[in-house]
């Protein structure tokens, strides 16, 4: 049995329906544990005080915001190459989640940045990249909303997603060139020396798992809605043909 079988909407609905409660429960546990541990059971940073705790929302949401676009890129390619409808609908369903995560990352970044850097907003390359990423999400969603025919919309948005990905990466490097920023380097990496301190590490990891779970859960729910909407359209079209 091949993986592609789940691209069939009916199989997808059956599987996703079965997985959804577990995904939701796992997400809830990871979020509660990660955030509670992070907020209440970690020491305050000796320089940043309690402000550092926003890291448990800021970093996970930022990671999801970027990887959501990657997921949309893969889904778009799958749609263009193998023409699986669920793939196109999943990309459509993911965009608002990604956009929301981008806004959360920007907002928490501003709240964190105010006491740290003394300003709500700075044209730091990473902040600016997120703003640009948000614009990409907006354009992508607007194109989906503007095209009537769902298959045409899927194709056009897929093309936009692929071209947009190239330009998003280009923008990222252009922005680094444009202004060397305030941000610290990577907070998490395999190289232990560069990591945040251990006490922050585990709750952060769990919070990230929670956000990824949240993304997956929301994505499943939204994709199921899109599949149902398409099913409704197909039924109505059949009705018209009589």
């Amino acid at each position, binding site marked *: 049995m091949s993986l592609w079988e789940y691209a069939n909407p009916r199989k997808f609905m059956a599987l996703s329906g079965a997985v959804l409660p577990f995904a939701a429960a796992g997400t809830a546990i990871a979020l509660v544990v990660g955030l509670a541990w992070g907020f209440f059971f970690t020491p305050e940073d000796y320089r940043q005080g309690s402000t550092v705790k926003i890291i448990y929302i800021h970093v996970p949401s930022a990671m999801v915001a970027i990887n959501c676009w990657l997921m949309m890129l893969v889904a778009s390619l799958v749609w263009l190459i193998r023409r699986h409808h669920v793939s196109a609908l999943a990309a459509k369903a993911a965009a608002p989640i990604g956009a929301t995560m981008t806004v959360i990352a920007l907002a928490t970044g501003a709240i964190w940045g105010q006491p740290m850097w003394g300003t709500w907003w700075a044209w730091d390359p990473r902040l600016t990249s997120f703003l640009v990423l948000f614009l990409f999400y907006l354009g992508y969603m607007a194109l989906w909303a503007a095209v009537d025919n769902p298959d045409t919309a899927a194709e056009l948005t897929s093309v936009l997603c692929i071209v947009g990905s190239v330009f998003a990466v280009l923008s990222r490097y252009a922005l680094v060139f444009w202004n060397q920023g305030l941000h610290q380097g990577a907070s998490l990496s395999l190289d232990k020396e560069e990591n945040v301190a251990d006490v922050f590490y585990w709750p952060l990891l769990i919070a990230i798992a929670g956000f990824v779970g949240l993304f997956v859960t929301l994505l499943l729910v939204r994709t199921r809605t899109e599949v149902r909407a398409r099913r409704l*359209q197909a039924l109505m*079209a059949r009705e018209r043909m009589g």
Partner: protein
Amino acid sequence: MEVRVEDLAIVRGGLRVLEGVSFRLPSARALVLRGPNGIGKTTLLRTLAGLQPADAGRVVPGPDAMAYASHADGIKATLSVEENLRFWARLHGTASITAALRDFNLETLAERPAGSLSAGQKRRLGLARMAVTGRAVWLFDEPTISLDADSVALFAAAVGRHLEVGGSAVIATHIDLGLAGADVLDLAPYKAAPPEHGHDFHEAFL
């Protein structure tokens, strides 16, 4: 050049409208498409012209042998009649437009901006474009809309001349053009059945 259409299925708005369409059109013959509104005449012509992919079946020769005239003529109002026609001729690598101007009685209008033409005159200009494409198979979608009786005769004569030199034409029309060598194809029998389960990917949602 013979046109062969085999078991063609065409899609409009994500649903099959026609299936199992098959016909042969030898050179020097014309085929008149008939059928009620919405049966898919325009979609069939667009599929033949290569503007949209067929859902199944095949068409020989490919779109490179077809010239397509839709409802819209692509006429630029600020260019003169001659400039409009010469543009399409250059695009198709045809040297001369005099024959096309003559055939559709546009010689006296050649210098006029196309925007000042009447609807019928514009239509004639749009049809004259077919003559400068140099292609063997002409596809017409309701070509006689807004043409008067004389112009219809002019059009029929032009198509007749095209057939005489070995070309062919597929024409979706409801009026009798009086063409010698025209066959009629009624599309109603090819109307696609409403989709059943597991039929093709659109029904994956049903």
